[in-house]
């Protein structure tokens, strides 16, 4: 549906989007996640043809955004970060205008369906300037839906909405999946994790991860981590765990005949643990699998990126220092050679 290859965009010397590549499959919901300034909006603006790219290519349904911009833009409904609204128009007039702009027939039935879907039926004859921020955001989304484009791109669609409106917009976006390919951006983790099938994490213009929220969590966790509170002696618990494919085993007395156990395992050992402890006469009072939230993954990945950048900068500084030192020593050696060459002449002169 959307193919992005080696996309790069600079603002002067700042590299806003740094050689990113990804592809979006039809009918799925993709979430762009990244801190402010990560390059989410810039990437979306390039996908929709609003901005040009320094390098790389973008194709939407086979149409090249840079070579055949009109055809490519026909495939996309776009809600920018700030909804592009004309305050002097009514909601219905605005949607008719959007239909005219996209060169699609403004059929009343279709517009009514969009109004219904976005919860704007009651305010369709009101001037946009009189609407609340939440309704204005909905009008922006409604505009993106006009013409039923196969790709919907929503830049921070829930920004400025109250919690109830956020839930409604999330439901709306979920409903768009299947019929449309949806790409939405947010810096709010819960937004993305609740709606998106696939998460694309951007940091400093680089795509640092792309996977389902579950796979990302699994990848970040690496292993299944379990915490247990067991009634029994530490030695008995340790003996019962002999032969289990576990790592990072920690057993600590918790007082009152209780033992706190932490262990990690690549395999699912929960059932085997239960029977083993039962056999050893150690009752499991509490058991919990440690879960990794998207927030942890995000922080880990963006932290890795920061660390990589810092390492790169440090390495560059070290190389520069080494070069400077080498040049200095070369210069000193040259001076010594010059002095030793000049010394016999001096002697001769003397």
């Amino acid at each position, binding site marked *: 549906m959307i193919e992005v290859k080696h996309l790069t965009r600079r603002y002067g010397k700042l590299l806003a989007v740094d050689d990113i590549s990804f592809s979006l499959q039809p009918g799925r919901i993709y979430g762009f996640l990244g801190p402010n300034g990560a390059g989410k909006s810039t990437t979306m603006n390039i996908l*929709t043809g*609003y901005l040009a790219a320094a390098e790389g290519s973008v194709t939407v349904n086979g149409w090249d955004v840079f070579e055949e*911009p*009109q055809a490519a*833009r026909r495939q996309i409904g*776009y809600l920018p970060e700030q909804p592009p609204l*004309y305050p002097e*128009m009514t909601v219905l007039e605005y949607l008719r*205008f959007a239909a005219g*702009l996209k060169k699609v027939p403004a059929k009343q039935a279709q517009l009514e369906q969009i109004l219904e879907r976005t919860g704007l039926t009651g305010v369709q004859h009101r001037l946009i300037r009189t609407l609340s921020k939440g309704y204005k955001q909905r009008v922006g989304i409604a505009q993106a839906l006009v013409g039923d484009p196969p790709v919907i791109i929503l830049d921070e669609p829930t920004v400025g909405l109250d919690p109830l409106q956020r839930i409604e917009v999330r439901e709306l976006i979920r409903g768009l999946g299947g019929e449309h390919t949806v790409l939405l951006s947010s810096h709010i983790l819960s937004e993305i994790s609740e709606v998106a099938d696939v998460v694309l994490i951007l940091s400093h213009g680089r795509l640092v991860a792309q996977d389902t929220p579950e796979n990302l969590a699994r990848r970040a966790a690496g292993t299944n981590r379990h915490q247990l509170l067991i009634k029994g002696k530490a030695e008995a618990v340790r003996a019962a765990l002999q032969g289990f494919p576990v790592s990072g085993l920690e057993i600590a007395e918790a007082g009152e005949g209780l033992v706190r156990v932490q262990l990690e395992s690549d395999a699912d050992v929960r059932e085997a643990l239960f029977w083993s402890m039962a056999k050893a006469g150690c009752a499991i009072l509490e058991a919990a699998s440690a879960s990794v939230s998207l927030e942890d993954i995000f922080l880990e990945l963006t932290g890795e990126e920061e660390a990589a950048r810092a390492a790169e900068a440090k390495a560059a500084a070290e190389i520069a220092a080494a070069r400077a030192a080498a040049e200095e020593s070369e210069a000193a050696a040259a001076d010594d050679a010059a002095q030793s060459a000049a010394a016999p002449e001096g002697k001769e002169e003397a």
Partner: protein
Amino acid sequence: MLAIYRREVHSYFTSPIGYLLIAFLLLMNGFYFTAYNLQNGYSNYGLVLYNTLIVLLVFCPLLTMRSFSEERRQKTDQLLLCAPVRTVEIVLAKFLACVTVIGVPFAVFCTCPLVLSLYGTVEFSISYGAIFAWLLMTCACLAVGVFFSSVTENQIVAALCGFAVLLLSYLSGGITSLVTSSAGAAVACLAVICLALGFLVWYMTRSRVLAGAAAGVGLVVLLALYLADSAAVVSALSAAMGAIDLFEPFLVFINGIFSVTSVVYYLSVIVLFLFLTVQSLERRRYN
């Protein structure tokens, strides 16, 4: 394109700006029409249009100032530039909406020679030729205003820039007579024009090398011309100032001559400034 045109016309006529500007233009023309044609008995309606030329210096920038700057301020330009519409269509739609607004006073002006014919003999060809030329000239002024609206998101700045350029154009005849008195003054004036050209190149390309090269080549040619033949510099300045005078070609029509050269000149100015507007909008995709 039609959707943008309709929206633009709708916005002009659902806010006071369109009505106020039209009323202002009609009031000034009505005043001169009464004074020249009705009270003093001149049959040439072109004289009225000639005396109200200065009104265009204010009218055109005020009408066009919001064309693109308002879109940019409201971020609605994103809607237009992400739509399956070519940039040239957007520019044409905006420009034609402005032309539609001046269509109202134009229609009123067209009735004036008919009114005069009730009281005496009127040379319709001269009067209607002048009205036609006024329309072309106003369209050229509007194209200038639309261009300045595309370079800034501040409406006031857009209006002031448009006004300054039209004023320079209006006064270019007087300036020419002042600076052509000596070759030195002519060289200074042409040097300023070269630097302004360099600035325009820099603005459009953001390339200091290209802008410097454009201004540098102009200055070198100017210097060479001055050293070779100082009188040629004066005539070059006269030609340059004549080219930027948007109002001079209109006078030919008032004198009863239908000048094809003037028509081509106005059409060229319109095309040039609309082209620059398209480039100005396209440039934003890259900057």
